[in-house]
């Protein structure tokens, strides 16, 4: 992993100024360190060898006080600047990658990805704080301070400068070596801890299940044993991994010791003044400090950088192709030999599907699980692109239409509708925020939603409603804007027969009003109201593919 990813600033332009401020403050800190060392050496030498009194040293003491005040200000401003940089990067990265994720659509988001991305938008991006607050300032100091110190010491005592110059490169060289070894170790340790946490989490999550089978008491010992085994394995690698950082520390401290001895002997033989010797001694550790601290902070920042890289990867994912022509209010939708290939699955679903959906008719898509009913609905919405074939809207290729205007022609009920926290009425109003109460109530009635007051609060993920109620809220939501196309995936699942009849009556009325009504369903009662039933079949290749699915072994 690179210590600094320039893409961060490319994608977070507003962070440039604070990052520049962090760098300027770093340079100021380096300058102040040099001046402070100079003043200390001056003061000590003057008092010790020159017998100077406080009065004589007034100038030095005043200057030192000013330098110290400067260091306090720089330390405070440095924290604020790194917070600003971090806040700007976090805000821009979060907004950009979420915007792109939404553009990439629900199909791309499906499954675990939305949970992962929620974590990335929250904890993941937040981890950048560690990078900006701890690592970046040290990295900047590490680039400036050693050079400045070396030049200053070189002017005063070339021999000490040679000692520092000879050992200083060892720090990054050993640092890289250590980094390689501790990187592998950190990786290993991180993985061990991750496996450990995962095991503990798995057991705690499964506690109710364990209790049902009377096995919960056994797990206490298992937790202790598993943790103990990992401890032993980790400590074995640690003993070796820490040896390499021992060498790194030795290089840094021993070169300070060498400088001290060298300066001491030069003083004895009168090659050097005390003032110069003290300056070399005070500055020598400063040359190594930022490098060592940057190395120590690197792992604290790794999480943030990894999160940033993941966010940038999403931002740089090309959005799905989109046309530009405005979509018409359609009369006819024609699917021509539409096939969709799914990554990781051989066999197409749908496979070579053709059909004609006309305004004023109810068309039912029927077919077994896995034949591609939901995928076809996604294709019609532009959430999925056909691998072969095309969809024509009033004779115009869907791929050439502007997605936004096309989707605004469609009322949609997905297989698992998502309800947002808020009232039932607010959920129904999603596509029509200004709809009057009467229209919302009418849509709810048309969706057979009598058993739920419109003011009822829906909590996360439709909590407070049954799945049948959620589906009817989604149906009312799709009906309210009165769009010319209705795409409904299993709209009557989980409904009792009476409610199902009422919903089907509504759908007949919608078709009679000149809409294209397209339903994916397998219930006979839905099929019975269809003007047209189109059957999808499972692709032949797919059936055999399922049997050769391979499973990877988990290394435990």
């Amino acid at each position, binding site marked *: 992993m690179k210590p600094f990813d320039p893409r961060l600033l490319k994608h977070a332009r507003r962070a440039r100024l604070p990052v520049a401020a962090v760098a300027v403050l770093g340079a100021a800190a380096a300058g102040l360190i040099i001046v402070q060392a100079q003043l200390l050496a001056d003061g000590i030498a003057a008092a010790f060898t020159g017998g100077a009194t406080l009065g004589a040293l007034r100038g030095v003491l005043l200057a030192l006080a000013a330098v110290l005040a400067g260091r306090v200000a720089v330390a405070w401003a440095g924290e604020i600047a790194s917070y600003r940089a971090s806040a700007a990067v976090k805000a821009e990265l979060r907004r950009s990658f979420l915007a792109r994720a939404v553009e990439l659509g629900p199909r791309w988001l499906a499954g675990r990805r939305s949970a992962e991305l929620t974590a990335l938008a929250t904890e993941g991006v937040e981890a950048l704080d560690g990078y900006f607050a701890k690592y970046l300032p040290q990295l900047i100091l590490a680039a400036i301070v050693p050079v400045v110190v070396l030049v200053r010491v070189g002017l005063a005592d070339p021999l000490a400068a040679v000692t520092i110059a000879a050992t200083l490169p060892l720090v990054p060289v050993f640092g890289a070596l250590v980094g390689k070894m501790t990187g592998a170790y950190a990786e290993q340790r991180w993985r061990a801890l991750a496996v450990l946490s995962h095991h503990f989490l798995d057991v705690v999550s499964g506690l109710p299940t364990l209790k049902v089978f009377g096995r919960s008491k056994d797990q206490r010992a298992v937790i202790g044993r598993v943790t103990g085994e990992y401890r032993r394995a980790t400590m074995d690698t640690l003993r070796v991994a820490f040896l390499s950082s021992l060498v790194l520390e030795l290089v840094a401290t021993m070169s300070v010791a060498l400088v001290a001895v060298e300066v001491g002997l030069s003083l004895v033989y009168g090659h050097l003044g005390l003032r110069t010797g003290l300056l070399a001694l005070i500055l020598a550790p400063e040359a190594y400090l930022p490098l060592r601290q940057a190395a120590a902070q690197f792992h604290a920042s790794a999480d943030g950088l990894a999160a940033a890289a993941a966010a940038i990867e999403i931002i740089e994912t090309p959005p799905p192709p989109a046309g530009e022509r405005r979509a018409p209010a359609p009369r006819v939708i024609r699917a021509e030999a539409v096939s969709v290939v799914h990554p990781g699955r051989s066999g197409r679903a749908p496979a070579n599907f053709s059909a004609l959906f006309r305004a004023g008719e109810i068309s039912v898509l029927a077919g077994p699980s896995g034949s591609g009913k939901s995928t076809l609905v996604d294709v019609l919405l532009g959430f999925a692109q056909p691998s072969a074939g095309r969809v024509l809207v009033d004779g115009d290729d869907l791929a050439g239409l502007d997605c936004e205007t096309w989707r605004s022609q469609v009322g949609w009920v997905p297989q698992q509708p998502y309800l947002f926290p808020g009232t039932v009425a607010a959920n129904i109003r999603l596509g029509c925020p200004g709809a009057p109460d009467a229209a919302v109530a009418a849509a709810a009635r048309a969706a057979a939603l009598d058993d739920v007051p419109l003011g009822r609060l829906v909590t996360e993920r439709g909590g407070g409603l049954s799945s049948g109620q959620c589906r009817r809220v*989604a149906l009312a939501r799709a009906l309210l804007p009165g769009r010319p196309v209705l795409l409904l995936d299993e709209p009557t699942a989980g409904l009792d027969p009476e409610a199902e009849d009422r919903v089907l009556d509504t759908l007949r009325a919608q078709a009679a009003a000149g809409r294209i009504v397209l339903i994916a369903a397998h219930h006979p009662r839905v099929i019975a109201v269809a003007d047209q039933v189109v059957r999808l079949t499972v692709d032949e290749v797919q059936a055999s593919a399922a049997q050769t699915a391979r499973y990877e072994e988990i290394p435990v």
Partner: protein
Amino acid sequence: MTTYSRARDGRRLALAGAAGTLAALSSIGLLATSAWLISRSAQHPPVLYLMVPVAAVQAFGIGRSFFRYAERLAGHDAALRILARMRMSAYDRLERLAPAGTAAFRSGDLISRLVSDIDATTDRWLRVRLPYAVALATGAVTVAVMAALQPASGLVLALSLAAAALGAPLLADVIGYQAERRLSPLRGELAAATSDLLNGAGELSVFSSSAGALRDVTAAGAAVTRVQARSAYARGLGMAVSTLAAGAALWLCLAFGVEGVRSGAVPGVVLAVLVLTPLAAHELFSGLGPAAQEIPRLRSSAARVGDVLGRPDPVREPASPMPPPAAPYDIRVSGLAARWEADGPDVLSGADLWLPAGHRIAVTGPSGSGKTTLAMVLLRFLDPSAGTVTLAGTDITELDSAAVRSVIGLCEQDAHIFDSTLRENLRLARPAATDAELRDALSRARLSDWADTLPAGLDTPVGEHGARLSGGQRQRLALARVLLADFPVVILDEPAEHLDEETADALTGDLLAATAGRTVLLITHRPVPAAQVDQVLRLTGGRLAEVPSAGHLGTKRPDLQPF
């Protein structure tokens, strides 16, 4: 045993602290003796006189690295041991609380939050207490040496070190803890807004609302950042305080030192030591800033863990339990009331149910009507607040809860599938089961057609939460487990929830077929075909009422049923 290992953890921590202190003292000693060496050299003594300080400088240089190595090893070892102990003791408590006492933590993120909070208790030792202990010991020794050289400088160093060590944590505590408390709900709002945006991406896009939802997320993120600004200012102030303390010490020690040299109280050769020692000591203490910043976060974690682990037991085990009852296992529920929180509302109130051995009853009702609460009470996961439940004539509160669960089993919605192999997930139900028995259970759950095609067979890993299985396969695996455990009474709690319509219909039928001959309580909000069960009850307003047109038990009122 716990006390013993706790004492050993303490010894290891003490070892790490001692090594850390020696490393820190070596680091300060290196600079102090170097300063003395250089000052002494300036007096041009014979080189032989410098051999001891030269050796000391080198010894400190080498010692620092080796003590640091020892500190790291001992510290990591202690951390992992403490982690194991913390987890085991937290598990003990959770084991008594789950599932009713941890019901608020059912969602995956909350459980993982709890688990990482438990792990964070380890950080308290390693990232806060250990650095502070090392700083305290090192500071004390350094101050003592300084005071021996010049009492005034010793006092200055003592005060400045105290300011550096306490200033940062106090600021972090006052400002940071407040900010941290305000942050938690704001972070939750950000996560909720993000989750809405991503999970509802399709709906938002079709109903032209993406831009607004994205603005909501941005606003929630900005609210988090605004509160973090306060933490950043606290951090900045903390840094300023510790830099100021270091600077003041440096300045005052120089001034006192110069005056001491002038008055003859301090030999000139010591002046550099008096000035450079505070420099080295404060460099060590500046490392306490990051440690102090951890305090508010760790305190919040500890408070959340304490909040969960301190809850009252949801079930009171009898002091002298009745002997486990024998078959037939008739279940009678009369006037049952139950609640999740001691001061919360009753979810069930006055519920009656008569479930004779061998019968199958379906309980329907809308979400939140208390169906799952009923199952929790029957499984003795939750004590009734009023009324009684008897199993084969014995009040279940008189029975050991494990004894009740050896008779009554549960196949629930989203049953937990462990991240292990098919075999291990099945053997959970019966550890001694043979492969033939496992395959038989799979076949009764109608999973064997699929399981037979797996190249690794029963050793196939199922993934985290059974991610490598389809939703229907997960529920069938859970069913196979229940069949293997051979419970005489089985509660099926919304077994087909979260499955698509077609799979749900097939699964419900298969579940009822596979549990034929057992006593079954099917809890569902889906319509139940009357032919599949003996009676359908509807749970509303905390009570169970009969749904007409059910099977042959339908005509019999529960309270009239003879024993």
